[in-house]
């Protein structure tokens, strides 16, 4: 992902996570990632959209046009059942991964 310092697949997971609380439009998802994750998870904002459409195509997200808070039509994304399952599995895997990485790094430091 150009301009991103994220591991591949991480953006997808962040998007799914952002939607865990309910439907959001693309801008809202970007803002949530920005505000929740802070600096280290900075995303080039445009990169969200190919990812969103890809996830939609994969059936992890569903999308509908609806009225936004400003009264404008916006495209809202929502987790599908498949998306929810995927998120749970990925999150678990991520935790394992992080734990493993930390263990390795910790071992080096302590060597």
């Amino acid at each position, binding site marked *: 992902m*150009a*301009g991103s310092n994220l591991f591949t697949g991480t953006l997808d997971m962040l998007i799914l996570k952002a939607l865990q*609380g*309910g*439907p*959001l*439009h*693309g*801008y*809202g*998802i*970007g*803002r*949530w990632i920005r505000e*929740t994750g802070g600096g280290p998870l900075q995303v*080039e*904002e*445009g*990169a969200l*959209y*190919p990812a*969103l*459409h*890809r996830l*939609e*195509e994969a059936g992890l997200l569903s999308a*509908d*046009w*609806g*009225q*936004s*808070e*400003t009264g*404008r*039509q*916006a*495209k*809202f994304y929502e987790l599908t059942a498949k998306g929810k399952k995927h998120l749970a599995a990925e999150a678990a895997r991520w935790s394992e991964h992080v734990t493993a990485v930390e263990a390795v790094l910790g071992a080096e430091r302590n060597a």
Partner: protein
Amino acid sequence: MSRSERDHDSADPTSDRPRRRPRRVLRLTRHTADAVRDVKDEVAFHIDMRTRELIEQGVDPAAAERMAREAFGDRAAIENQTTAISDSAGRRRRRAEMLDSLRRDVGFALRGLIRQPGFALAAIATLALCIGANVAVFSVIDTVVLRPLPFPRSDRIITFYNAYPGSGVERSGNSVPDYFDRRENLTAIDSVALYDEISATIGEGAAAANVFVSRVSPEFFDVLGAEPALGRAFDAEDGVIGRNTNVVISHGLWQSHFGGAEDVLGDTLEVDDNAYTVIGVMPADFEFVTWNAQAWFSLAWPESMRNAYHRNNFGMLGRLKPDATVHQAQQQLDALNAEILTSLSPDARRSLEAAGFRSIVRGWQDDLLRDFRGPLYLLWASVALVMLVGAFNVANLLLLRLSTRLGELSTRFVLGAGRWRLARQLFTESALLTGIGAALGLAFAAGSLRFLDVFEHYQVPRLNEVHLDGAAIAFALLAALGLAAMAALMPIVVVQRSDLFEVFRGGGATGRRTPGGRLLSARGALVAGQVAAAFVLVTTGGLLLSSLINLWAVDPGFETDDLAAGAVLLAADRYPEIDDRIDFRNRALSELRTIPGVSGAAFATQLPFSGEEQTLVFFPEGYERGDDEAVEAHDYTYVSPSFFDTLGIPLRAGRLFDARDETGAPPAVIIDEHLARRYWPDQSPIGRRVALNTNPSAEEEWLTVIGVVGSVVQNDLDRTSPRGAFYLPATYSGEVMWRWIVRADGGVRDAHEQAREAFRRLDPEMPVFWTTTMNGAIAERLIPRRIPMLLVIGFAALALFLTTLGVYGVVAYAATRRTREFGIRIALGSPVSRIYRAMLARAGTLIGIGIAAGATASMFVSRLIAGQLYGIRPTDARVLGGAAVAIAAVALLACVAPTRRATRVDPVIALREE
């Protein structure tokens, strides 16, 4: 973020969560919209929101937008990338959604049909009958008319015949000299072949089988472009007299008679007790179009035959050169005939000119179908009309159903299903009905095609090849689709034009601008259309039926009841001399006459209504023909003396044959009344002499007229001008195949068995063929008229029935709508008869319009059937009037029941109903 924070978010007016749940109904419209625009909208929204956010954080508005764009990245690239994903995803989804909605539509339609099984059954039965009949007729027409003949470049194959229209012979065969002349002189053709279609006995004794065979000139197979699968076809050597002892056999005969032996070539085949050598076996799929011959023998002629012009005993085929046309061949043929004419004596030339003698060359397929196109196209038109009536009825049924469903449809409309969506639903229902109808119709067609066997003897080319194939199935599908569109059209129009909001609000069935009124007028138009189509069919059926009745009334010239007939073969090995055959016939006649109940027995070379037609030209001595008067060919038959008494043909003058004539000195002939009037109008023909060729050389070639008998119909009851016939003593003929006929007052069935036994008593190995009764033979001759007539009458009855249903439906609907009004009128003292009058007047108007339209259409159809009528004109007032009365009566009867129901409702109940 915790759960509670999220909940807080949702309530926040500035949150990014949707204010309302996205509306499901918008899905269809947004999803089908252009993916590019969607992505652009989405991105623009993002940048706008980001700009706002930055401004809220205190950034200068101008700078804010720039910063928002920078934070977004390469907008164009991202849009492209996203659109690409969205596009392919959208396509997939749209397809899935289409399928899904189709599934839902079909499910919905199915449930609807199951809820009203009566409606569904009526519609499906109608459609199955209509589509089935159409598929069956289409299959026949496709195979028989539309497909090229099964030979290479079959469009190059031509056929010849001689015509003497001035003599009443529109069509004759070809003579041996024609073959030699045309072979040598027509440069437009590659090759020409002569053939005949006869039957022969294969094998020996009582086990002998009578099969169709053909005698052909050596080029026959070349002309067709067919080659044997085994061995060779004929070559020039086979056309030399004395060497024509070879035979080419069919695949079928190879299998049945030779057990499919590979070494069959060179084997001997016994045919009519002569031995032939097998030189070739044709492939399994080779079949001559008009004659399912099992063996082909080569024709060869003595030199004397090369001058026997106008003995037209053969069929002739030719193959055009690749760049030649039928027209060129015709021109060359005309030039050739003109040249031959100049070599004739002035008398002979004059008589041929008077006869309008011309040789015709035509495309073979075109010519083969000459008698079948008319009836087949008539059937096609009839069955298409039935389909039209059926479609009207299904449309009518759908409209009727629509009236009970408007509420449901308007609800769906108000809930956001577009008119297009509703139209699709209506079409799906209609297509479901026609689809089921088409499937059943195919089964029905497959079943009905088995009855084509009744036309077996009529040499309809390739009728035996007719079966349901891909073309028929495609036709059925197309028909189903077309019918679905037709039947759905009216309901769709009604829905499109109706104020569905009004219906939803409950204004439903009243008022002029509402669907109720539209429904009624649409259904009225359908009913009028049905009446028109039914009228055309009923008149057509009536005309054909009248023709057949007229034909049955034609006097065949003899007593057809109680006559049993058949054929025997006096095979040349056991009856080598003419005298042997005469002797057998004499003994057989005595034997046949001993059968109880048999009052007469005779032999002849052909019998009336046997399908045979042997004709010869006839030259009365000293008869001066006018300049424009033609030489005519007349039917001739060799008969035993008892022939006339047995058939009941009356003697008008002179005497019948007796022992004196058998020796043939002087040779005797009996003529029929037509010939007597034709050649000796004011005098007695008895004692006059006639010759059978233009310049008889010897005294014994003159025949003396000894008697005049009544005219007999030879084959076709519908022949408008008699051809004239003459009879010669059986003893003059060397023929081996003889027809026998007995008059059995005690019932003909038994006579056949007894006759067979009588022949076996004389010769245990005598093969007996073609047993039939005279009335059976006549009925069979009429099959080509009777079957199409029965089919058209069947179609007419079906159309009438469907029309009655249609009228009933529309009147019943109108009556239901007016029940309240009737209630008030009756309550106010209006007589019931006045209400009846009002209802019948309305239906009568529709029926009247329909009949008027049908009568107009009949004028166009009449041209199509004129050729198939006998003794009646297409505009016959009795038939047209009868059809109009019948349709009007049946249709008006259909109005009575619903009106009765509507007027018998208690006014109080009727009033309360609203």
